[in-house]
């Protein structure tokens, strides 16, 4: 199935898809909120789902619902084939070598915790260092803080510059003989910054230090190939890439995953249990204890089919133009200040308006049917860096359009009027 979608995609890529029509695939977008058609600009928090994803989930529950891997009956074989089929789709989508390297998790957060606990915790002790950046989401900070607390290792942070980019000189300086692990976001959810991950990965490789990319905000916007990147681990969330909630994945190089002890214990992750001894199952099952989110994985597979049919390159180009137009428009709002001016940006734009707290902005634009996010975006250190308690953030997906930008700008004018 995914190969069909890829074929369609390949043949269609010659001309740009009609993004205006794709919008109709998303039922959520077709509703009025507070009397206005919904203008959804909170895609960095979670994305909307195309009908094909919603019905893939419902269809599984209506026709093929059964537990996977352990059954000989027909429904169980169908469920297993669909669940493993989704793994294969994801493998292809991110360019992993083998499905053995694709571990399903609840999402990015769990994927990072898995690496922190099963890979790093047994390896480090006092004197060792973990390197992250000032741009990280809490999910790529707290798991490392916890490991450091558990082991005595220390957390090093490559600081940001005034544009909201990681200071690469700092990154290189902090990458030392003591560094045992590097974890960086591919794209920042708070500012939209695209990190120069190529350079970062190469620097880590040169020193023989394994590196994890937090890809939660990259996959919805760009083509990602983990083998091209040559990173060791890559974490992602389905709900941020048009798939269901409660599912995501960890990509890990087979050699690393093989050497790791399991993370959680339970059904499916063992091949033999007795009270004296337990033998763990092969990859990737060693890391998938208990009944997985079967419907979620199947829905993620459907989301990947959908994205493949459009083509990630097309999406990237479409969004680049849209984000540029939004930046232009925002610059016309008096008193509006952009937070973060990265050279390369994907998805998100953070801003503040003089004299109006972001929280009030959020409520007022919502009254106009415009959904944006306000707050710290689970990236308090980024806020601290800019000396702000919070920002307002508009974040885009391929189904957004110029009308959405127009709606946002008008709603922001409305905010200024309320506080005039």
């Amino acid at each position, binding site marked *: 199935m995914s190969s069909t979608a890829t074929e369609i995609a390949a043949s269609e890529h010659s001309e740009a898809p009609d993004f205006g029509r794709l919008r109709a695939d998303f039922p959520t977008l077709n509703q009025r909120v*507070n009397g206005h058609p919904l203008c959804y600009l909170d895609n960095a928090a979670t994305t909307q789902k195309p009908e094909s994803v919603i019905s893939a989930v419902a269809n599984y529950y209506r026709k093929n619902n059964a537990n996977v891997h352990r059954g000989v009956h027909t429904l169980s074989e169908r469920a297993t084939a669909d669940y493993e089929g989704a793994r294969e789709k994801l493998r292809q989508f991110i360019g992993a070598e083998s499905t053995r390297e694709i571990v399903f998790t609840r999402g990015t957060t769990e994927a990072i915790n898995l690496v922190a606990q099963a890979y790093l915790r047994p390896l480090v002790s006092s004197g060792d260092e973990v390197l992250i950046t000032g741009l990280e989401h809490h999910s790529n900070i707290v798991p490392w803080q916890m490991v450091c607390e558990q082991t005595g290792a220390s957390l090093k942070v490559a600081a940001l510059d005034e544009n909201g980019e990681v200071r690469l000189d700092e990154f290189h300086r902090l990458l030392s003989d003591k560094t045992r692990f590097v974890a960086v976001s591919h794209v920042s959810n708070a500012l939209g910054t695209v990190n120069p991950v190529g350079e970062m990965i190469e620097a880590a490789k040169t020193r023989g230090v394994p590196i994890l990319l937090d890809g939660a905000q990259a996959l919805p916007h760009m083509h990602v190939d983990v083998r091209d990147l040559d990173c060791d681990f890559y974490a992602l969330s389905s709900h941020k890439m048009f798939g269901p909630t409660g599912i995501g994945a960890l990509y890990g190089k087979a050699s690393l995953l093989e050497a790791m002890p399991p993370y959680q214990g339970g059904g499916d992750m063992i091949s033999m249990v007795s009270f004296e001894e337990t033998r763990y199952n092969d990859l990737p099952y060693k890391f998938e204890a208990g009944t997985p989110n079967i419907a979620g994985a199947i829905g993620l597979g459907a989301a990947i089919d959908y994205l493949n049919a459009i083509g990630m390159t097309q999406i990237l180009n479409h969004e680049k133009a849209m984000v540029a137009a939004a930046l232009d428009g925002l610059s016309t709002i008096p008193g509006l200040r952009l937070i973060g001016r990265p050279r390369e940006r994907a998805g998100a734009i953070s801003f503040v308006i003089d004299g*109006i*707290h*972001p*929280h*009030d902005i959020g*409520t*007022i634009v919502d*009254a106009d049917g415009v959904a944006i996010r*306000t*707050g*710290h975006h689970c990236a*308090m250190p980024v*806020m601290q860096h800019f000396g*702000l*308690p*919070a920002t307002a953030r508009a974040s885009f997906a391929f189904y957004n359009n110029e009308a959405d930008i127009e709606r946002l700008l008008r709603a922001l004018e409305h905010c200024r009027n*309320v*506080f005039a």
Partner: protein
Amino acid sequence: MDLNDLYRDVIVDHNKSPRNFGDLTDADHSAQGFNPLCGDELTVYLNIKDDQITDVRFKGQGCAISIASASLMTEKLKGLSVEDTRQLFGKVHSMLTADAPDIPVDEMGKLAALQGVRAYPSRVKCASLCWHTVIAALDKRATPVSTE
């Protein structure tokens, strides 16, 4: 849901020019409150004599709702007994959250300007932060109040 009901003139005014804003250096009671979700941070200072609030000030940063609520609160508290303050907290809480509040809103005086918050569940925390903080000050609690 009418936005004008939330951002009433009183609210906009108290946000722009908060009353009793600033330090109270000789305060005998004080507490910190924060709402990590939106980054609101308040400190409330009290002087209490014979079980009566003789002075009250606050400082901090926050959205219009939390600043205006704190400002309105300080106006109301001056001269109130500790017991009455605690009771008033209950009434305000009821006004902010209950579909059928305990007491008629028109008995709330100026605080009634906050009644529009009820229609905005995510904003209740903003309006109630200062009240939680005052109660913490009365209780002499050392750890900051958090409303998340």
